[in-house]
């Protein structure tokens, strides 16, 4: 269990994290979502005692990180891609860490095997690709078999197979009863991995909720309708108070009525229906709607197609 209360961090005039309060319960994957620069990493660094907060607390099972008896056996953190010396081998890097917390050295080979780095364990870590470095970071986080895990952007640099592996790993760790907090700016990734969401923007809490609730709460519910009787149907819908928009493919987008209501209307007025599909707001839509005022860095114009696609 991670408990963050009124956590605040300033860098000069910039408030990176502002009165942030949330909880990360055990047994589920909690996604930590926010645009770039919204304070996710700073918050995670404060939870792990690396950055010192201006005010507020971040507790792990009721304790400040620096007071933990066996930090690596209680908390595992992947906070940056490369937290190892480039000329030290992967195995030696993990051994140095294991010694610091009395972790049996056989555990080093276990986690190397778990992350799939056994064959390169004797190679200098500086020669690793971004993805291999990420796996070594995950191995270090798992070294002490901790009950609480923090992963900051764990899928960065991983190939599709690696991404799927991390996703399953996070879910397995949570299923074992562990507390798992994973940050991402990739909403689609969170939709697949997380059970709960903590959403922040500009260092402030925007939402703390289940993924399904988050989507249901925001997001405009609309219904896609395909009918040959466009004119008659539009008039009937308007008479019922719904707003009707035209889709590019000749379909209608109806807001203000549910799909069953539209179906009933069609039966009453003997209008033909070829397609009737409720459009659920995606997690992405919900996120964009909630954070549109909170984005720290945005392109100066909307013309940049590539920039928009990457966000």
């Amino acid at each position, binding site marked *: 269990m991670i408990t963050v209360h009124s956590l605040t961090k300033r860098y000069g005039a910039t408030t990176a994290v502002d009165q942030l309060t949330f909880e990360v319960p055990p047994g589920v994957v909690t996604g930590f979502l926010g645009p770039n620069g919204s304070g996710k990493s700073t918050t995670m660094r404060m939870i792990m005692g690396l950055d010192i907060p201006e005010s507020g607390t971040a507790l792990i099972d009721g304790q400040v990180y620096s007071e933990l008896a*066996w930090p690596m*056996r209680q908390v595992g953190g992947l*906070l940056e891609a490369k937290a190892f010396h480039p000329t030290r081998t992967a195995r*030696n890097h993990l051994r140095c860490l294991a010694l*610091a*917390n009395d972790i049996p050295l056989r*555990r080093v080979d276990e986690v190397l095997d778990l992350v799939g780095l056994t064959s390169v364990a004797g190679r200098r870590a500086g020669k690793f690709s971004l993805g291999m470095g990420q796996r070594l970071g995950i191995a*270090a986080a798992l070294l002490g*078999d901790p009950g609480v895990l923090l992963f900051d952007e764990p899928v960065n640099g991983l190939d599709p197979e690696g991404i799927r592996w991390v996703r399953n790993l996070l879910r397995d760790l949570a299923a074992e009863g562990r507390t798992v907090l994973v940050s991402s700016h990739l909403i689609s990734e969170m939709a697949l991995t997380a059970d709960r969401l903590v959403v922040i923007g500009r260092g402030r809490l925007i939402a703390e909720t289940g993924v399904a609730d988050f989507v249901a709460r925001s997001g405009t519910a609309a219904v896609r309708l395909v009918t040959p009787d466009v004119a008659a149907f539009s008039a009937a819908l308007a008479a019922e108070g719904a707003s009707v928009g035209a889709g590019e493919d000749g379909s209608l987008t109806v807001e203000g009525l549910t799909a069953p209501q539209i179906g009933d209307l069609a039966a009453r007025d003997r209008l033909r229906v070829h397609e009737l599909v409720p459009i659920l707001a995606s997690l992405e839509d919900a996120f964009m709607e909630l954070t549109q005022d909170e984005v720290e860095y945005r392109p100066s114009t909307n013309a940049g197609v590539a920039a928009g696609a990457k966000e």
Partner: protein
Amino acid sequence: MSQTALALPPGRYRFSNAVRSEVAKIATLRSTVITLGLTVVAGLLVTGLVTNAALGHSPGYYMGFDPTSEALTGLIVAALTGGVFGALLITAEYSSGTIRATLAAIPRRPVLLGAKTGVTAAVMLVFCELLSFVSFFLGEAILSGGGAPSASLGSPGALRAVVLTGLFIALMTLMSFGFGLIFRSTAAAIASFVAVVFVLPLVMHGISEPDVRYLPTQILTDSVMRTVRQGPGGVIHPLSPTVGILLMALYAAVAMGAGALLFLRRDA
């Protein structure tokens, strides 16, 4: 709440855990072995060349000749090694990002700093004492073999000079470690060390020559290594070995103290 497969052992991690981790870190870096190995080769080469050059002169040359300090000349190379080594042990952690993993394992910063300082000082002290003795024996063997005046460990002040030279360079290493803590950048820390140890004496000669005796380099060569007082007439009156070593300890303490204060307070 949080279930773990490995049960937590009783108690908590100790200072000894931090020490073992730091020793393993030094031992698993190839650069450590290479740096120390090169220091041995270069240091002994300097001692060999200097003592060899002191052979076969007229008797007048040997007035005030100090065979002990001649045989310790190679340790000046170790002073540079200490400066680089001391700085790198902390700055390399910052430049590589390892410091984050280190602090995640040992989050009590005084414990980590104590272990790092202790291991750094111990490694350099043992290394420099060994090199100091080897350099002394090599130098004296060359001098006596070539018929020049030579010393033994029993000669007045010789043992003190050999032992204090090793200790002095360990203190210089800690001063550089302090610079590393302050700047966290390898370039800035090593530049500071070189400025204080090798550039400042040159500048000071032009400003106030008598005060050169307070600088680390001058203390090392004129107070610590020397067993025969220089004749009268010099502008610089060297400090006594005891005052010299205490002053170097003060320099190291100031750099370490400032570095430690910053390390304990700022974000990693």
